[in-house]
């Protein structure tokens, strides 16, 4: 390993982009990844092109994981965790633990914290059940279905009625997530367009409070033209059964409750701080913003500790990509 390596904590999109950019400039990096493989959540995402590209940003990723694993200046430690960090900028010592025990990595100049995020899974997992195009699924599960789609469709059996429940685990004080997750409008409406492309007959309904991140009013019109229905309300609950039903207050009816049947219900889950946040915050001396995401408490240029990706708040794929390149550039500027 070279004299001054950069330690990257988390080998998802942000970590891999940063590591690859640094390595391509001759700076050795070590990626500590808790999972068995690189890629984090993005690796499971599916393409959102319908008849043409819908610009979800996934194409930026391409064969990033292969390029990172094959790069001679990047060492990837899988199934590993950072357990301690000692030192100052330019001379950090990290203790990393994997299933065989602990090891100390010396001579680390800078640290990139890119531990990503967790889905709103605590709220989601209680609800989900799925088989063959029927049930209740999380947004991530829909991504996986899209990733595995074939020429003729996404589901084993075409659902005739699909509901999307927006802001699931976002804008929700009980979930301790009062913020907007910024990505759910984008992925769910794009996914809906893929579904529309393959299943012209399927009824698609969105229950929403506020569509924040759709690219403007014209996009909203495009969706409506594709026969996607939008109901402005947050449903009261999902009533389990066969088929499942959504219980909601009819907008403008003065509080009349309505139940509607759906074959498939998609929970457009949002972005929550990673479960590892607290541990990493303590080890790396980081603070929290008002929503519980990590933030640096002093200048990264001085501490040598940088944040990249959704660890500091919800971001879209192109934003993570651009930010990671910038972090790499800052570190490279400092090391030089």
């Amino acid at each position: 390993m070279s004299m001054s390596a950069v330690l990257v904590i988390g080998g998802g999109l942000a970590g891999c982009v940063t590591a690859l950019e640094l390595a391509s400039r001759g700076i050795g990096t070590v990626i500590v990844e808790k999972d068995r493989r690189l890629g984090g959540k993005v690796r499971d995402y599916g393409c959102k092109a319908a008849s043409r590209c819908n610009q979800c940003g996934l194409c930026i990723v391409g064969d990033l994981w292969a390029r990172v694993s094959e790069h001679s200046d990047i060492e990837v430690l899988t199934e590993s965790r950072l357990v301690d960090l000692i030192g100052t900028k330019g001379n950090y010592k990290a203790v990393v633990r994997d299933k065989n025990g602990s090891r100390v990595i010396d001579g680390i100049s800078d640290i990139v914290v890119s531990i990503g995020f967790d889905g709103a899974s605590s709220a989601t997992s209680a609800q989900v059940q799925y088989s063959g195009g029927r049930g209740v699924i999380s947004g991530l599960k829909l991504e996986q279905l899209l990733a595995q789609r074939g020429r003729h469709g996404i589901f084993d059996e075409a659902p005739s009625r699909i509901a999307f429940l927006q802001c699931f685990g976002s804008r929700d004080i009980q979930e301790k997530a009062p913020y907007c997750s910024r990505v759910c409008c984008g992925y769910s409406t794009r996914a809906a367009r893929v579904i529309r492309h393959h299943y012209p007959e399927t009824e698609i309904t969105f229950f929403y409070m506020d569509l924040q991140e759709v690219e403007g009013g014209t996009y909203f019109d495009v969706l409506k033209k594709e026969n996607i229905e939008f109901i402005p309300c947050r449903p009261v609950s999902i009533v389990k059964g066969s088929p499942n039903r959504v219980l909601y207050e009819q907008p403008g009816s003065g509080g009349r409750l309505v139940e509607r049947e759906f074959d498939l219900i998609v929970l457009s889950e949002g972005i929550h701080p990673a479960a590892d946040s607290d541990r990493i915050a303590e080890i790396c001396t980081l603070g929290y913003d008002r929503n519980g995401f990590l933030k640096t408490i002093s200048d990264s240029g001085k501490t040598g500790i940088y944040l990249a990706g959704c660890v500091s708040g919800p971001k879209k794929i192109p934003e993570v990509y651009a930010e990671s390149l910038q972090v790499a550039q800052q570190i490279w500027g400092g090391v030089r």
Partner: protein
Amino acid sequence: MRIAIIGKSPINEPLKERLLSEGLTPVLVENINDILGVVGQKGDFAIRTRYGDVEAGYVIATQGPELSNPVPEVPSLPLSGSSVQNILDKNAKQAVLLLDYPDESPGIMTEIALKKAAELARKRVNVVCLARFIRTSGGYLEQLYREARHFNAVFIKYSELSMDCFENAVVIHARINEGNETISIKTDNLIIAEKISAGEDIREMASRLRIHLDDEGKASGDNPFVFSAMTNRKGVFALHNTSPGLTNETKEMIDYTIAAIKMEMAAGKNSGHAVVDADKCALCYTCYRVCTHAAMAPDPNPDRSAMMNLEEACYGCGICVSQCPAAAVRLTEAGMEVKPEMAMKGSLKIFCCENSAKLAFERAKPELEEIYDKVDITPVSCGGEITTAGILSALHRYRKVLVAVCMDDACKHLEGNKRAKRQVLKAQQLLKSIAMDPGRIEYVQLSHAMPRVMAETVIEALG
């Protein structure tokens, strides 16, 4: 390193300062009509002007927005064009900020409206902000929104709106609560978000800088969703009609652009590019015309009457290779034409774009294990490199040819996939004209994240 700023924009000043603070030298050419063209490549551009050449390593095109009042018949103040002090000087007790009327306001107006609403509300003006879309999801905007709310600014979302004008006041009727209620607000201080359009010069600018514009008149990059300031021409960046002033969004754009320039400066020599054979070149300018990256130029050497490739500008997409009528262009890195034909492995030849279909094929390997011996795959750097001749010559050796390229709107080189499609259609027509089965050539568009689509297509093509 000299960085040329071309165009007139309110961000020129802050951009200049940032460049200086980064140790770069800004050179300003404000009037686009002074420019005849920009020649050369990244690191070594020459801007030809009426007054002589200006040399610069990189170019940032800035295009100031044109602001206009969307409803001139209604007496109002412009949102970005009037200062808070102006409104306060009128001793205003109340003000209405109107966004998204009659069409959706540009995103940047939200930030301006939130700031002005907060400032006015802080000075005890009753502020009502009417908008069809209140987009505050970015961290910074959320904070501004909270601040404005804290000082009692009221935000109302409407679905439809009409206005009655009186001598000194306007009455606004807004459908709210998803169209279930109507409210009327009277105001003598109506502040309307302006319409922003690309300046009229934008097309001139694009043609002189040889950068590509999308349907909305914005410069679009090779990979439009990566980095919005990038253009199809390496080393030329576009910060276009972003906003009337320096907002957080523009600051970020400037940061990204400077970071990108520094990275370009540090990048090594480009190895994958096109090479022109000067003996074969007929100087027909086809490559100059079809190159989406402005990487072809006439050779300045008077002894050689030929085109040349600007190596640092070239992406090695091969569009010029497939389009050159004299077969005078080749690629330095193995492509469709230069690669010696692999031994015939079986019955299907696949020409696939390395950005999409090749990666999908690799991911689909587990599913394709059984038929792996029957296919021979040639990745090309872009579908644009695929030729009718190449497809037909493959048919001598293979029962079938599959051309697999990127989805519409996803080509990194803007139109390589469209060119591939044209070549496939041409080849199919030729087959038809000699009574051969055009079905021997198949064509599919997909993304790298569609492995099963790739597997199914290959299996189906094998029959």
